């Protein structure tokens, strides 16, 4: 069965700057409530963890290949399963697009390298 991969890198400092500049206007447009709760730290949301989630969302978009379709960031949620593994949950437009184009079994891995968060997403494509 064909597979498709997407990868993305996000500068953690860029996320820190966006949080400082836009605060909730940025956070609420990009991250779900659950993601924000998962990224909460003693000094507010952790830009490092946010950056990893943004990278995973963008990597997922590269796999979904939306073309002219609108796929809001909020329709792709990144969360941790009980074992600590990052998993993707699609909803709304992202779910519809995946179903329509037969993209399934999306799997992600996220990590960090110095000032950068990265993510790769791999999925099966086809019936």
């Amino acid at each position, binding site marked *: 069965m064909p597979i498709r991969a997407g990868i*993305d890198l*996000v*500068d953690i400092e*860029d*996320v820190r700057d*966006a949080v400082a*500049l*836009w605060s909730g*206007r*940025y956070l609420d*447009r*990009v991250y779900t409530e659950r993601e924000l709760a998962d990224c909460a730290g003693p000094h507010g949301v952790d830009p490092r963890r946010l950056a990893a989630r*943004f990278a995973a969302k*963008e990597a997922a*978009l590269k796999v979904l290949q*939306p073309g*002219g*379709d*609108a*796929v*809001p*960031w*909020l329709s792709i949620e990144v969360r941790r399963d009980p074992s600590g593994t990052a998993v993707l949950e699609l909803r709304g*437009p992202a779910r519809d697009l995946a179903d329509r184009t037969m993209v399934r079994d999306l799997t992600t891995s996220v990590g960090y390298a110095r000032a950068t968060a990265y993510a790769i997403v791999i999925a099966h494509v086809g019936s």
Partner: protein
Amino acid sequence: MTNGIRRILNDHARLSVDAASIDGSADLFDAGMSSHASVNVMIALEDAFDIEFPDSMLRRATFASVDAIGGAVARLQAESS
């Protein structure tokens, strides 16, 4: 409007070139704008032009060029007037 868009791009898009000199149809992602930077551009545009991008416009093409952004802003302003 275009000057305002170019100013916002210089402030937030992190392009590898001066936004004032970029062709209206040039691809901003090819010119160095990251997906994350496009979020900053979107919010700055909302502030500057008193608009809000609906979910249906959150696609790469909306922010892909100065001309595309100008068209999107004009459409949203027309809808709100």
